[in-house]
């Protein structure tokens, strides 16, 4: 059930333009595109046909404000009709400025308010384990500024202490945290017992290696650094 078809950058770009509809996007949107492509092209075991399969992998977009690329990718992969992109945010639209899991097929959580995705991801991983579902993995995409929220500290500490192996956090680090993180974002996870990889957030091969680099004993974090200011 793994999707191996690479997303055509030109197609994705056109879909993103359709979503954009003349508006300007910030770095928080563009910086997520590469991670999303690698996840949906090569990592996540999920297709439009398996969005309700209890053994699917889960992808939780915690930084819900970076949603435009997510919608474009979901359209490129066939989770949602491309036509939905034309009215993003409109009064009849199912695609808000933050995603709603009850309105968008393939979306696992409604997000937007920062600091909720990782806690929900921890609970999802625990729920899968409690039901003996050991195949699916849970991926949560966060922003580096989002890590400022204390709720993430609670989740990082607990997941590490309990060796929650089914969980992978991805921190899109575009240096937007107001006060930064000395030593890098990864250190905040590793000190709590996670495995970690810090990679160039534009390098698809490096991202793929990192995203599949979990040791199956501990939670894993991939810090995807994007510094080109796009």
């Amino acid at each position: 059930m793994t999707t191996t078809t690479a997303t055509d950058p030109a197609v994705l770009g056109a879909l993103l333009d359709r979503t954009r509809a003349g508006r300007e996007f910030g770095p928080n949107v563009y910086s997520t595109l590469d991670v999303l492509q690698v996840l949906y092209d090569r990592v996540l075991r999920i297709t439009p046909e398996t969005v309700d399969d209890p053994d699917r992998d889960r992808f939780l977009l915690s930084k819900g404000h970076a949603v435009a690329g997510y919608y474009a990718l979901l359209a490129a992969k066939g989770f949602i009709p491309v036509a939905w992109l034309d009215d993003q945010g409109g009064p009849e639209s199912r695609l808000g400025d933050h995603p709603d899991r009850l309105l968008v097929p393939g979306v696992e959580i409604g997000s937007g308010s920062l600091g909720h995705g990782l806690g929900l991801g921890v609970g999802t991983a625990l729920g899968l384990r409690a039901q003996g579902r050991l195949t699916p993995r849970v991926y949560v995409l966060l922003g580096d500024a989002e890590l400022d929220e204390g709720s993430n500290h609670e989740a990082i500490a607990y997941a590490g202490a309990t060796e929650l192996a089914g969980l992978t956090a991805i921190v899109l680090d575009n240096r937007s945290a107001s006060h930064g993180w000395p030593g890098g974002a990864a250190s905040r996870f590793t000190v709590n017992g996670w495995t970690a990889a810090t990679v160039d957030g534009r390098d698809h091969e490096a991202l793929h290696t990192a995203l599949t680099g979990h040791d199956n004993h501990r939670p894993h974090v991939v810090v995807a650094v994007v510094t080109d200011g796009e």
Partner: protein
Amino acid sequence: MREAFIDTMTELLAEDPRTAVVLADISAASFAPAARRHPDRVLNVGIREQLLVGVAGGLALTGLRPVAHSYAPFLVERAYEQIKLDLGHQGVSAVLVSVGASYDRAAAGRTHLGPADVALLDTLPGWTVHVPGHRDEVPALLRATVAADGPAYLRLSTQHNDRARSNDGALQVVRDAGPGAPLLVAVGPLLDPALAAVAGLPVTVAYTHRPRPFDTAGLRALAGTEVILVEPYLAGTSARVVGAALADRPHRLLALGVGREELRRYGSAEDHSRWHGLDAAGLRRSVDAFLAAVPALA
């Protein structure tokens, strides 16, 4: 009530593989035997209340029926946004079970007082709220709540009535003063003080352990012109519900409960009941003043 919850929840964990308990250290020692038997479904996240509710939301997303438990101010007030977003907004639900009620641990001070819990949950749609008045009401309530699918809150207290009153949550007439008499609705453990307060007065007394959804049909059937609410949490919490239910009728409402002012006093739960006017003598004073204010018909 806390022991009844732990005993019944331990049974439910053994009976229903869909159940899970999430703790934030509170009551963790009491759940230790259950945790040994069901290590994947009794989860203690440590003193992390945001995560407590977030984990409950994640468990529910995978199809489990989570029960999250802590002290009322930590469970409901500290984690309010998680309750709003990680449960309601995700379209999933959980059972929240609190202990401590409004001022069970009065000597601990403001940090451990939680009289706003029901009012806070009242800002969110769809919640069922149970406020049992006796420990023997807890097992059936918990079982029915866990078996159902919706969001529910069980508010457990060390305050209690002398005996249990089991029913389906509808208003239950405990004392009937006849048609047209003033109606007093007592919620949970305030039934006994309310009954004592109106001894000798021609006041009908009805009990409920389920203020949400409030039994508005029962209220309309029982209420005359005067309605008195006696609730063990913030005064006026149910006033909006009663007002809406009786909007088409002339009526007067007296809403009694815990005051909003921070008292900055310790003491016992009994002391706080007295200070908030929720002991029998205080309730009697309020009821007398309310009924005395009825204008004489010309």
